[in-house]
């Protein structure tokens, strides 16, 4: 008896959950479907869901017009590059904060986060001037520097909360067992820190991939990532829904797929130590 009730309940809850999930996902699904329509069908009323002549024409147009792969590789280079450099700088800092905290550690952390609140538009001109003089405009290095700096506070914060969860007792125990510092780091700490670092890395790649102000304003061609690619489809003349959809799909698909595959690690990292 109890069992049937719980099954029925499960069915109802599942139905609601699926409904909500599909609703939230719908704009993405719709973009995906529209990218295979002709411009005419894309705005047809009533809308066509699955029964239309599927075409790859939009993807072809988009690729010949704007060289998707160059933008894609620029996105990968800058997002991954800034994440790696960010981690190299942030790991020691977060480590120190987590394992030798002082009275001011928390203040430093909060100050770091507060630098993220600088309005980017307000400092564009100074940064543009500096970049011009250092010849960093439209270079991967320049973009990597900016992306590293704007995401560094988040990286430090995430790593800090993560490292803090590593029990210090284990370290002491291993020291008792006569482990050297090197062994301690390799065999005890690293395995415990890797998941945290991995999820920080994932989140940071997503943030860097989607950053749309600096990436657009500091690049022209050689380093222009996918955000610049999208800007050429945002409101052109004539009918553009299908081409826009194709470009959008191309811009978000890589990161969406990466995000889906690494969902578990990401969720872990996203909790910012909020969950014990």
């Amino acid at each position, binding site marked *: 008896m109890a069992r049937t009730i719980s099954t029925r309940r499960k069915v109802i809850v599942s139905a609601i959950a699926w409904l909500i999930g599909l609703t939230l996902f719908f704009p993405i699904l719709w973009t995906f479907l529209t990218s295979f329509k002709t411009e005419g069908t894309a705005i047809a009323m009533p809308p066509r869901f699955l029964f239309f002549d599927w075409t790859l024409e939009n993807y072809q147009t988009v690729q010949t017009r704007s060289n998707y792969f160059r933008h894609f590789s620029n996105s990968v280079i800058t997002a991954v590059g800034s994440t790696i450099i960010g981690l190299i700088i942030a790991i020691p800092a977060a480590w120190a904060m987590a394992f030798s905290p002082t009275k001011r550690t928390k203040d430093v952390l909060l100050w770091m986060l507060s630098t993220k609140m600088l309005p980017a538009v307000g400092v564009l001109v100074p940064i*543009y001037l500096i970049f011009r003089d250092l010849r960093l405009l439209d270079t991967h290095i320049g973009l990597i520097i900016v992306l590293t700096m704007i995401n560094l506070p988040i990286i430090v914060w995430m790593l800090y909360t993560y490292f803090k969860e590593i029990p210090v007792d284990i370290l002491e125990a291993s020291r008792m067992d006569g482990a050297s510092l090197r062994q301690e780091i390799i065999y005890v700490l690293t395995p415990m820190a890797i998941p945290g670092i991995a999820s920080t890395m994932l989140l940071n790649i997503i943030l860097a991939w989607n950053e749309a102000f600096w990436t657009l304003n500091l690049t022209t061609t050689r380093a222009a990532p996918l955000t610049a690619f999208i800007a050429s489809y945002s409101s052109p003349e004539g009918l553009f829904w299908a081409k826009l959809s194709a470009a959008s799909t191309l811009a978000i698909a890589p990161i969406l797929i990466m995000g889906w595959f690494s969902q578990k690690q990401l969720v872990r990292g996203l909790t910012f130590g909020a969950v014990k």
Partner: protein
Amino acid sequence: MKLSSLVLGSCSLVVLAATAQAQSLTIATVNNGDMIRMQALSPQFTEETGIALDWVILEENILRQRVTTDIATQGGQYDIMTIGAYETPIWAAQGWLAPLDGLGGDYDIDDLLPAVRQALTVDGQLYAAPFYAESAMIMYRTDLFEQAGLDMPEAPTWDFIADAARQITDRDAEIYGICLRGRAGWGENMAFLTALANSYGARWFDMDWEPQFDSPEWNEALNLYVDLMTEAGPPGASSNGFNENLALFQQGRCGMWMDATVAASFVTNPDESEVADSVGYALFPTHNNFGNHGNWLWVWSLGIPASSQNADAAQQFLAWATSKDYLELVASQEGWANVPPGTRTSLYENPAYIEAAPFAGMTLDAMNSANTSNSSVQDVPYSGGQFVAIPEFQGIGTAVGQIFSAALAGQTSVDQALQQAQQITRMEMDRSGYYR
């Protein structure tokens, strides 16, 4: 292992990017149809000259922001920039643009339409090469007019337009009598509203640079606009710009549309437009007996920043992209109706073009009737037709555009909007030292 190879990979790519720029030009342009066609045809240029091209194609507002930042800070990121009739004289006066003195003998500079050439010339020197040019006119649906028993005159008045728009509107069938720009921006709704105000005898500034939004002419013009759009306009008009209205017209939602003449080739293109075979044209409307048709003139043109290291190659490209041969090239591939219009006299004398482009005559008339040195029937201290050619106008025009789009959305009354516009314009002009 993975990490280090990635780092190495990205480093080597950076090096590659830095060395791979022998003879190449970076071109910034707008994502309008004619420019995209230019990009598609440009491999031919590379083949002929060996000069490689890097295209940066952006949405108009982003493009303008990017190129202005770059040229004002001498960033040197572009060799060729797509700029308009507004920027060219101002930038040339600042010494930011390279003079175009190497376009070559067969460029035939005298073939450029006089109004267009004048808009790009400072002190007798051409500073940008016109790619396509436009005035404004009425595009209307002949079938809907016939149904309603209306007859569009060649040079209609606003009274007639208002009347016709209301008659044609059929909200249940999603047909709206009139589509006009409403999206805020100096190049969006303010371009249209300035032209409308011109035709109503209004002006932006008097001869002492005092803003004139408190004048009865502006009041009349803005009231007409808001009333007409509320009664006969499409929903969401306050966020519609050129492209949104174009899409609406192509889908057959608009009875009339007053906008850039260049739209004519899009709305008559059967591949894109559902109403291609029932579009008629008329001059931009007038009011009273002013005979003022708005004086809209815009030239999308290609300029070379003074800081460009490749000015010679860049001029070569300009000469190619704005030449008679380029028009022939487009015509041979896409048909005469699709060539970039409005720049060359010879185009309008070409029977093949007149035959293929039923809108050619109206476009030429509209362009010839645009007077940009004195756009209003009253005296004005500025030049420019649907804009005011002073550096402050981008900011002021956008701020005023926001206020007027709020009036269109019904968030403020027309009187309030005009009062705010007056106040904000006065403040900006004061700040810029016009009253000292």
